[in-house]
């Protein structure tokens, strides 16, 4: 058995929920975590109470609970995606400058973000396609990318057109430089850093097959 197959941990690509479960499992107990809008929000469904994870939302709260339903819905209690959420025991509220001081001061252990592209050295592009007619919107993405101790990205490895989003150099406008430490995709988990890309595990492909899809040199972690 080759080294490549030894890191294949699933016989098919992971779906969004399986990937979210994997990210959730990888979060160190006791961590303070911010989950970005979109796919990263799914991670909250798979955090176990015994992990004692505290969720931060940029709009001024620590101790955010699951999405609100029915009578729980309260327009004054929303997450960064403007979706009604709930409050867990031990939650706290603060204003926007204090909330971003938590992010920018390096106090969050992990943030999980979506991405358009990630470079081999961990540059992140997730806020702007660069299309000339696009109206840009950045929100808290740059603050999270720069401030969190670890930045995890969740994305499909390929675009709909089959092009790798893990790239040598981002062609989309950057969100942050050298900030991404892990990339969770449907086909593999990548560890990014100044020394290039290592592959922790693959899903439904060998490292060799993965390398054929990705334009940056890969090696097993």
């Amino acid at each position: 058995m080759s080294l490549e197959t030894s890191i294949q941990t699933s016989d098919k690509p992971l779906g969004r929920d399986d990937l979210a479960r994997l990210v959730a499992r990888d979060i160190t107990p006791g961590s303070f975590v911010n989950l970005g809008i979109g796919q990263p929000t799914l991670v909250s469904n798979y955090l176990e109470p015994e992990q004692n994870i505290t969720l931060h939302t940029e709009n001024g709260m620590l101790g955010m609970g699951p999405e609100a339903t029915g009578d729980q819905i309260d327009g004054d209690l929303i997450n960064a995606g403007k979706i009604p959420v709930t409050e867990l025991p031990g939650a706290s509220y603060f204003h926007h400058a204090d909330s971003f001081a938590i992010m920018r001061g390096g106090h969050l252990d992990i943030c999980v973000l979506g991405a358009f592209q990630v470079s081999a050295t961990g540059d992140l592009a997730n806020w702007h396609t660069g299309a000339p007619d696009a109206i840009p919107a950045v929100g808290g993405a740059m603050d999270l990318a720069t401030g969190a101790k670890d930045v995890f990205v969740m994305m499909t490895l390929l675009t709909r057109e089959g092009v790798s989003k893990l790239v040598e150099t981002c062609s989309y406008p950057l969100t942050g430089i050298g900030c991404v430490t892990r990339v969770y995709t449907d086909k593999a988990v990548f560890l990014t850093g100044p020394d290039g890309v290592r592959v922790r595990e693959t899903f439904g492909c060998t490292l060799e097959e993965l390398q054929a899809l990705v334009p940056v040199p890969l090696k097993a972690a």
Partner: protein
Amino acid sequence: MLNFIDTVGEAVAGIQDGSTVMIGGFGNAGQPFELIDALMDCGATDLTVVNNNAGQGDQGLALLIKEGRVKKMICSFPRQSDSWHFDAKFRAGEIELELVPQGNLAERIRAAGAGIGGFFTPTGYGTTLAEGKETRFLDGKWQVFETPIHADVALIKALKADGKGNLVYRKTARNFGPIMAAAAKHTIVQVSELVPTGGLDPEVIVTPGIYVNNIVKVA
């Protein structure tokens, strides 16, 4: 000077054409809808508006933009599924946009209230949003120089005010309210409840009355 005012119309009556107006809220939470409607009615135009977003749907800030009363938006997240009025004005070149990372927006507003003339932050370094800005290597990181955002007026929403103008907020509706109240020359607050002086625990007041000028109770 603190004034308790009966109607939102009177509360915003002093806002001049050409003013910079901060508007609290993140999404709908903490948006002072009644004060924005009153600003719409009062006719002030040529406004620079500071808000996290650039209006949603067909109400509030979105209407101000639609009616051409806003010459410039300073915000972090203008593009949303229902930001069609902003989108149209922007594509028509009829509104200026200063796009600011949300943490820089918050910190720049805070700086204005706290008397800070400028600061360095790593956020945005190496991105198009920092193009042309001064950079410096500090604390082991490249950082970007950012300046305070001052305003003539802030329109914010709080839960309660006491007789001294002290404010408390509710849940994530707190968001930009406290820092905008401190950054603006003139702060206009809509509250859900007025309580007597002494009716708020001094330990839990979020915005001291020193930052508040006009208070109007909204049903």
